[in-house]
């Protein structure tokens, strides 16, 4: 790994964290719990989702432990079902969906558009409280015995054949859904109406475009999940019959309505991560993102196309052959904009001055692993192969590649990239690079064998499996252990850096973007005066000119 780095820190013997910033502005618990400041809300979210991530991670650990042996020996089959259900529910609704938008998005979007706050600060705070309420409901459900339907709540299993806590989980997700809707709504309004003078759409950072596209999905898709959960609750309590064949209903209706949200949900999860990657790749290649317009429009295209492919989760469930054909074709189309992004990032790297700080390591990991995950998605989009691979470990591997190898790596890239701006301090570079590499190795060891297992025919959601699959499962569990260490390290060293990290100064990465032109941590109002945007996005020449004009001063 090259020793070259683009990091420029102020003189540590004289540098200080700015006395007045959003953290020091007000003191006391209530000033945090009743805040309207988007940066404080982002901090609250960061702590909350980290908490839920480790709960979901612990559940994953238990799953992998059970799968070390072919028999159902560690936990009973019913308990195993509860483990993977709660793992899915928590990881999707309480970690991945809010991860980048609610933390990095909340923190950065007002600064990136040149505003003093999001458009609706109180709605932002409400969004966090809804998340916490939903989280408490989810924890209650786990304590009360859990739910074992799978996070997909497939009917009629979830409505007629199980006696577990479907209703409370459904209601928890309902509330979490509204948290998501309000975040997305806030972003759309802010991006349309609060851009500073001179900030045209095509001067926005691509992070903003990605979050905008994800927000459209949040606002339009999540309500359908909400009504679907209401119908599940009614079906279980009153017995209305809308999903019950005996009463004339159709179990597949649930799946149509459920996947109408849940497919766009995966784009809600990945798009903000792609936004992070755009920023990181540009900064660590010292080059503007290649094909800005293509990347911007591809985000919106993913959002639009993403609404019309949902039934590719239902190929074997009993939809008509014609529907299979149409949805398969549309699924092929939706892969195109994602591929466009990967190509554009690759061309950004070409002839760039590349350095390998931690965010860039995670970004490289993203590009490789997301490509594999996305490609296997195309394999699954072809209905012929899907018939054999669906409900096997191939699917499990596919979505973990895109969500963990993709999204989670992007999230970590973003956290590391903007950590100096958020806290005013740098994280320790060597150990963070080590953690990134450990994560990458652990990830591949965990999930690559699962592709093979799926092709060989191991079904998903089973606590037991034929003995010939054991060796691959053992690899997978070993990888999971390494992965766990890789995720634990950042929590430790990032917390350490809060007190002992180097003072970062305004712009340690020499990045473009309005957020880097303010102090670290930022003021509560972000800017003393609303800035005027007079240059294009990723304009490194502009940055050079600014730095020549600036007089070096104490931080």
């Amino acid at each position, binding site marked *: 790994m090259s020793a070259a780095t683009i990091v420029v820190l102020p003189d540590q013997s004289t540098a200080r964290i700015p006395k007045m910033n959003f953290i020091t502005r007000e003191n006391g618990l209530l000033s945090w719990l009743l805040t309207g400041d988007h940066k404080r809300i982002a901090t609250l979210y960061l702590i909350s989702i980290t908490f839920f991530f480790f709960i979901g991670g612990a559940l994953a650990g238990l799953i992998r432990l059970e799968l070390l042996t072919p028999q159902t020996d560690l936990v009973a089959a019913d308990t195993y079902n509860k483990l993977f259900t709660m793992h899915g529910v928590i990881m999707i609704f309480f970690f991945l969906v809010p991860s980048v938008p609610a933390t990095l998005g909340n923190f950065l979007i007002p600064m990136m558009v040149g505003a003093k706050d999001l458009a609706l600060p109180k709605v932002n705070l409400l969004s966090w409280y809804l998340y916490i309420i939903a989280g408490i409901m989810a924890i209650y459900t786990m304590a009360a015995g859990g739910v074992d339907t799978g996070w997909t709540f497939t009917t009629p299993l979830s409505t007629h054949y199980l006696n577990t806590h479907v209703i409370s989980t459904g209601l928890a997700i309902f509330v979490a859904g509204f948290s998501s809707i309000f975040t997305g709504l806030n972003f759309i*309004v802010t991006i349309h109406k*609060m851009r500073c003078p001179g900030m045209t759409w095509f001067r926005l950072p691509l992070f903003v475009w990605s979050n905008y596209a994800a927000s459209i999905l949040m606002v339009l898709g999540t309500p*359908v999940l909400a009504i679907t959960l209401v119908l599940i609750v009614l079906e279980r309590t009153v017995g209305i019959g*809308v999903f019950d064949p005996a009463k004339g209903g159709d179990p597949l*209706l649930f799946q149509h309505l459920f996947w109408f949200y849940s497919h766009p949900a995966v784009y809600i999860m990945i798009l903000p991560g792609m936004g992070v990657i755009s920023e990181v790749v540009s900064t660590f290649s010292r080059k503007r993102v290649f094909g800005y317009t293509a990347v911007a429009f591809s985000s919106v295209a993913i959002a639009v196309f993403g609404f019309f492919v949902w039934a590719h989760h239902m190929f074997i469930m009993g939809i008509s052959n014609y529907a299979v054909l149409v949805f398969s074709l549309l699924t092929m189309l939706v892969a195109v904009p994602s591929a466009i992004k990967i190509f554009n990032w690759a061309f950004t790297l070409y002839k760039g001055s590349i350095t390998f700080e931690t965010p860039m390591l995670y970004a490289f990991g993203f590009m490789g692993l997301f490509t594999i995950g996305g490609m296997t998605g195309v394999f699954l989009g072809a209905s012929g192969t899907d018939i054999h691979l669906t409900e096997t470990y191939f699917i499990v591997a596919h979505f973990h590649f895109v969500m963990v190898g993709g999204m989670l790596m992007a999230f970590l890239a973003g956290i590391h990239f903007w950590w100096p701006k958020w806290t005013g301090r740098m994280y320790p570079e060597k150990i963070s690079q080590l953690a990134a590499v450990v994560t990458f190795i652990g990830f591949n060891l965990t999930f690559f064998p699962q592709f093979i297992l799926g092709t060989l025919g191991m079904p998903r959601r089973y606590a037991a499996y034929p003995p010939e699959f054991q060796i691959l499962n053992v690899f997978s569990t070993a990888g999971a252990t390494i992965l766990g260490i890789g995720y634990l390290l950042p929590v430790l060293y990032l917390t350490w850096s809060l007190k002992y990290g180097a003072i970062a100064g305004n712009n340690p990465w020499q990045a473009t973007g309005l957020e880097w032109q303010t102090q670290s941590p930022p003021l509560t109002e972000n*800017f003393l*005066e*609303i800035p005027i945007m007079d240059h294009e996005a990723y304009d490194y020449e502009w940055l050079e000119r600014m730095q020549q004009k600036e007089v070096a001063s104490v931080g």
Partner: protein
Amino acid sequence: MSDSPAIPHGAQVEADSAHHEHPSYQRHHFVTFEQQADTTNFAMWLFLLTEIMFFGGLFTAYLIMRNWYYPAFVAASHQLNIGWGTANTAVLITSSFTMAMGVWCAETRRKAGLVLCLGLTFILGLAFLGIKSIEYHEKWEKHHIPGLHYSIKSFVDPASDPEVYKSYPQDTGLQLDMANKTELYFFLYFAMTGMHALHMIIGIAILGFMIFRARAGAYTTGHVTFVENFGLYWHFVDIIWIFLFPLLYLISRHQ
């Protein structure tokens, strides 16, 4: 280095004057009141989009079940009182009119007019709920509430319900399994009108609060956005009913 370097000096003076000029009801993160009004209006429209999609799931379920069990839907729809339904539609449309007039009063700073219009909208909203509860009660009497002693008797044997039989003497009665599907119709009826009524109740509660504030003059000093945005919500609830009425009440009334 805490100032953003992107500000040209000329704008500094104007920015200062802008800061001193903003009305008391303008939030500090907005540059002008117009921006705030524009923003909150757009935010309300986005919220209404979420409501469209929320009801969308119910409409989808309805369309599928209606296609599958058309005879059951016809027979069940005949048992709804078209008089009450039409009356409710007229009530809601009128309340939309009074709400729109209320917005006009706020915009033209007519405080008494605003209070009157909001009050009329409030009363009409309550009237709608009153008629709804009469209808729901009727359904309870006839045992047409799914899950609560539901009875298919009047569908299998129409003559047993003289009121309906008078209007539709040619109704021959449904086969047993099709008659059972009327429960699905009524489930959708209660789910859709119930969800709609829930939105009405929330709207009426907010109206009550607004009347109280309007009497204090809160909306007639130029800060009309709350009334305007609530008006959007109220009209949207009206639009939902505009679609619910023909879909639920007017299925094949000519038979």
